[in-house]
């Protein structure tokens, strides 16, 4: 069993990061995530939003392998449960693979919280527990998977920055359009005086 943890600071406020994390896929840094579905969602009595999601990922096996083992067998499915607490400002996600469970188990947990000293920043703490089953090289393979998770976590953070830039650009565009539509009646009102 291998445990991997990491901490990262985003230079964006918690609301921005949370909105981006909700819309993380698709993004160019994680091309292997090819499907995201919401299985269930609801607000609990404490006002927290719970979401259960299914992520479909494609390993990118060469097409000859796919033609032998069939297309659907190359997908890995991950189930994710997340909770957003808008009062406490926490966004916590937990995910686990639900296919190939007889071979490997990857459980991940991510928590986004405002930086305790700077409300314009957000801290992400990330943890993964990896177990490869029934193979004598398991601790070596677990090490390989941990470094893969580490490099993917780097891509994941880049992905978050990409989504944040895209959302900010959309807001800019909306604001520019709004300014354009307000300017005309305002100019008319001024000239009328």
């Amino acid at each position, binding site marked *: 069993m291998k445990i991997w943890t990491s901490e990262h600071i985003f230079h964006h406020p918690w609301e921005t990061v949370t909105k981006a994390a909700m819309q993380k896929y698709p993004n160019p840094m994680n091309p292997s995530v090819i499907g995201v579905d919401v299985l269930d969602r609801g607000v609990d009595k404490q006002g927290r*939003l719970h979401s259960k999601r299914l992520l479909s990922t494609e390993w990118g096996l060469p097409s000859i392998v796919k033609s032998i083992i069939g297309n659907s067998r190359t997908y890995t499915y991950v189930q994710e449960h997340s909770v957003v607490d808008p009062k406490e400002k926490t966004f916590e996600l937990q995910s686990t693979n639900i296919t190939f*469970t007889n071979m490997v188990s990857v459980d991940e947990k991510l928590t986004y919280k405002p930086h305790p000293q700077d409300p314009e920043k957000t801290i992400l703490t990330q943890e993964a527990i990896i177990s490869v089953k029934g193979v004598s090289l398991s601790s070596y393979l677990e090490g390989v998977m941990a470094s893969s998770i580490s490099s993917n976590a780097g891509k994941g953070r880049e992905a978050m920055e990409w989504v944040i830039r895209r959302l900010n650009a959309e807001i800019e565009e909306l604001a520019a359009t709004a300014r354009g539509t307000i300017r005309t009646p305002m100019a008319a009102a001024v000239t009328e005086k």
Partner: protein
Amino acid sequence: MNSVGESCTDLKRDYDQCFNRWFAEKFLKGDRSEDPCTETFRKYQRCVQKAIKEKDIPVDGVEFMGPNKDKPES
């Protein structure tokens, strides 16, 4: 982004747009007004649940599996 069920992608897109708007403009701002997406969610869900059954994806209703819990064999 596609849905696990190819035919559900449009329904998913409608729901996602509705949800993202409500999430950013209401929920995160502490607005407790009613979720406007329940109808689109229902349509989307009907499609997705069918796709999951057809593809035999082992979704379960159990909470996050900690390191000590046994997973069912896939």
